């Protein structure tokens, strides 16, 4: 052990990653203040949530990766049980059964699964010899698809896809064969029409159709996309300035504090601000990938890689949705969007990353 440890190092905290997250947190507060119509109580609520998020990050950073690996199967199984319970007794919220009321507070079991699935797949592979064989891949696919399916029937297709993706990242990083990857891609492509016809709800189909022509139903499904594109486009290069988003202030932009918060940011700060925001997100992603490369154990490196990629995926899907190149799925912009569970989940993930990095083994010669 090195002789002199800084305070940060003593508490397993990673300075670059922490700095990026703090910057995003500050941006979040600024944009939420503006998007909520300068509502102090909403901004304070987000501040509290971010505070809880950082606390969770701190706690997660204190858990040794080996401990985490030991807990992984139980967390995963516990999460599955909660998912089943939420399906059976879930409180109806926003037309979907996602929340589980635990008396003092409500939780979304699907949020747990966002972390539990990549952990479980990483744990599974850490017990196997890599690169992954087809048989292993099929077992891993089972680990991934079971909770994803349970989330999808809630119905929360967006989260289900994100969960499946975080598991798939592990699978990919574990070295799943290219032929298998190709096979799965073909399978997905082939089943797409089937999924379209039998598994998607009308509103989901509409959202995808809207992507191709938002103007077809400007006051219906296309409304979100059109209004967010107006917000982004009218921001121009330098933006209208903080608190000057007319699209949000005048309520044209729906979900302006949550899923569509990026549109408010883009309107107020323009392309110039966006490049700064992108830099921070990509820096945080990059830091996660670097942590993954330093990690020397199967479990830690797979988990770290998956967490970093999932973080980027959220970012990409959210902005793709806001700018009209992806269908409207309920994916928030990490950290920036107003919302409880996702911040906590995300921060827990970053805490794990920091723990992984702090407890990394010295690189082999």
């Amino acid at each position, binding site marked *: 052990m090195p002789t002199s440890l800084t305070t940060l190092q003593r508490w397993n905290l990673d300075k670059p990653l922490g700095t990026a997250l703090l910057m995003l947190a500050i941006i979040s507060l600024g944009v939420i203040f503006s998007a909520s119509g300068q509502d102090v109580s909403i901004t304070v609520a987000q501040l509290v949530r971010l505070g809880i998020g950082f606390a969770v990050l701190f706690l997660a950073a204190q858990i040794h990766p080996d401990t985490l690996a030991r807990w992984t199967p139980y967390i995963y199984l516990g999460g599955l049980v909660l998912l089943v319970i939420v399906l059976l007794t879930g409180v109806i919220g926003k037309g979907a059964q996602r929340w589980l009321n635990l008396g003092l507070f409500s939780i979304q079991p699907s949020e747990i699964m966002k972390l539990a699935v990549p952990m479980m797949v990483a744990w599974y592979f850490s017990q196997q*010899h890599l690169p992954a064989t087809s048989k292993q891949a099929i077992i891993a696919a089972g680990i991934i698809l079971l909770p994803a399916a349970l989330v999808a029937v809630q119905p929360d297709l967006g989260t289900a896809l994100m969960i499946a993706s975080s598991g798939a990242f592990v699978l990919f990083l574990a070295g799943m064969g290219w032929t298998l990857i190709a096979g799965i891609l073909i399978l997905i492509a082939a089943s797409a029409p089937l999924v379209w016809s039998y598994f998607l709800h009308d509103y989901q189909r509409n959202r995808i159709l809207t992507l191709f022509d938002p103007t077809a139903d400007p006051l219906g499904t296309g409304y979100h996309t059109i209004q967010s594109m*107006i917000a*982004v486009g*009218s921001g121009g290069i330098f933006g209208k300035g903080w608190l000057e988003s007319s699209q949000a202030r005048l309520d044209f932009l729906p979900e302006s504090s949550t899923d569509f918060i990026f549109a408010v940011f883009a309107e107020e700060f323009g392309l110039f601000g966006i490049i700064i925001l992108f830099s921070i997100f990509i820096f945080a992603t990059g830091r996660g990938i670097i942590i993954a490369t330093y990690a020397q154990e199967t479990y830690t490196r797979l988990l770290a890689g998956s967490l970093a990629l999932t973080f980027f995926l959220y970012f990409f899907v959210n902005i793709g949705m806001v*700018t009209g*190149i992806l269908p409207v799925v309920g994916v928030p912009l990490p950290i920036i969007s107003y919302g409880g569970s996702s911040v906590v989940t995300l921060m827990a993930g970053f805490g794990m990353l920091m723990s992984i990095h702090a407890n990394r083994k010295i690189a082999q010669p």
Partner: protein
Amino acid sequence: MKLDIPIKDSFRESRVFSSRLTITVIGIAILSLLLLARLVYLQIVSYGHYETLSQKNRINSLPLPPVRGLILDRNGVVLAQNFPVYTLEITPELAGDMESLITDISRLIEISAGDLERFNKQRKKRPKFEPQVLRTHLSDAEAARIAVKRPFMPGVELQVRLQRHYPLGTLGIHTLGYVGRISEDDQRTIDTSRYRGTQYIGKLGIEKSYESILLGRVGIERNEVNAYGRKLREVSRIAPVAGKNLYLNIDTRLQALAENALAEKRGAVVAIEPSTGAVLTFASVPTYDPNQFVNGIDQASYKSLLDNIDKPLINRALNGQYAPGSTIKPFLGLAGLALGKITTTTEVNCKGWYSLPGSRHRFRDWKKTGHGITNLKKAITESCDVYFYTLATKLGIELMTQALAPFGFGRKTGIDLALESKGLLPTQEWKDARKEPWYAGETVIFGIGQGPILVTPLQLATATAMIANNGVRMQPILRFASENPVTHKINRFTPKVRNRLPDFVLPYLPAIQEAMVNVVHGKKGTGRRIGWNAKYKIAGKTGTSQVKGIKQNEVYNRDLTPERFRDHALFIAYAPADDPKIAVAVIVENGEHGSSAAAPIARKLMDEYLLGNAS
């Protein structure tokens, strides 16, 4: 050597992991660039487009329609005004089941079949988001009943609208015209930006001619609105500019007198101030109520107006074309003198008929026994036909046509009303267009204002005013002045000279004027019945316009002729004869005799105008 029992191959695992991670880094780079490209497209390439959309979202422009100018007569009597009325309007888009909604409404207030028909007609023509008027002029009680139930009737609005109202009803309709709802045809011809928020447009008469003065300028209130259309604050406001008030030359007292005198008859009266061309009276009877056109007339009422045998919709003063009959004689007499075909002493022996040389056809005089030895003054005073048959033959059709043209016959007078008729003078072009040759007999009867010559009452009045004004024809005009409703600054219209008689004609005018005075004041004058007790000198000329041709050996028998084939009675006059203030033309359709049917109307008008009381 390969082992049977697989062991963890850390090195290989690490290598695979590294290569996979590299692939994901490339993927991240590609996806980030994709997002950036999309943002560049939205924020730089399409910036203008989205900026416009953003502004359109944010700002709602509300047109502020101007108040239409009033129309008043020369003494300030209001002829057209704006009156606040409760109107019940329905926006079809919001209404849902229209049938049941209207049933509900008709339980509260009376909806006539006409209202309903008009509403349905408008509803089919106009966009669904535009409110349409179902009922106007709701009483306070009716408005209250609707107001109570309105929250349960989506799409129903109770509005207080300024509506055009013609307080004198039918009076002067053929001058005033009316406004109506802007139709699709109107939409094509108007600058629609000037009509934002305005529902009415001048359709006829003065309302149409002076549309641009009366309309005013639309104002715009630009409000910042939220997504629900709620106004948050006013961004800017351009106040509307009210239309100018328009004063007409019309004198309502005279107009009413003329219309009342013609009541139950058909005809027209036009009175002009000779020195200015100011049109004091412009009456056409029968009339109709313009107020029913403001919100679109219902089919049944319109059909009854159209089918009415008296044709009330026709503006007889402007578009009625009549043979001038003997009223043409003073004009032809002047032509004969000026062109040297006769002198004031030239005499014709009237035996009661006239024949062209070498023809046995007899052109009869109205007086079977004849007038005897007749000079021009006597011919005009007693309206001798034979004298004018002779004169017409001497002049020939070309000279007569040329001589009548300066008086404005055969062409539009240019009065400030649209769609004026120009009457008929048999010009060379007209004769060429006609397939038939010109007959000598046509020249003969032209002398007494029959055959291919048609004049409008307005033309006749203008020509009379020209004689009264010593050969200077003023442009007849209805507009007197316009007034800025805010500053009350009045802009008076300057009279314009339309044309003058050639100088060589002028020395002969007094003889004609003198003869016309003799018509009214001479012992044997055809108009003497209105002259004997007049307090001022009147110059006039009677006329009879044949409706039905009378065959050679036929005698006009009044009792056997149905009313509508009886002759039209005409009278032209001006007074006082030595200082003319008013020139009048009266036509009473099927009134038979100018002296008995038409002349007394002219006298009443002149008395009222010159003395201030109707005798």
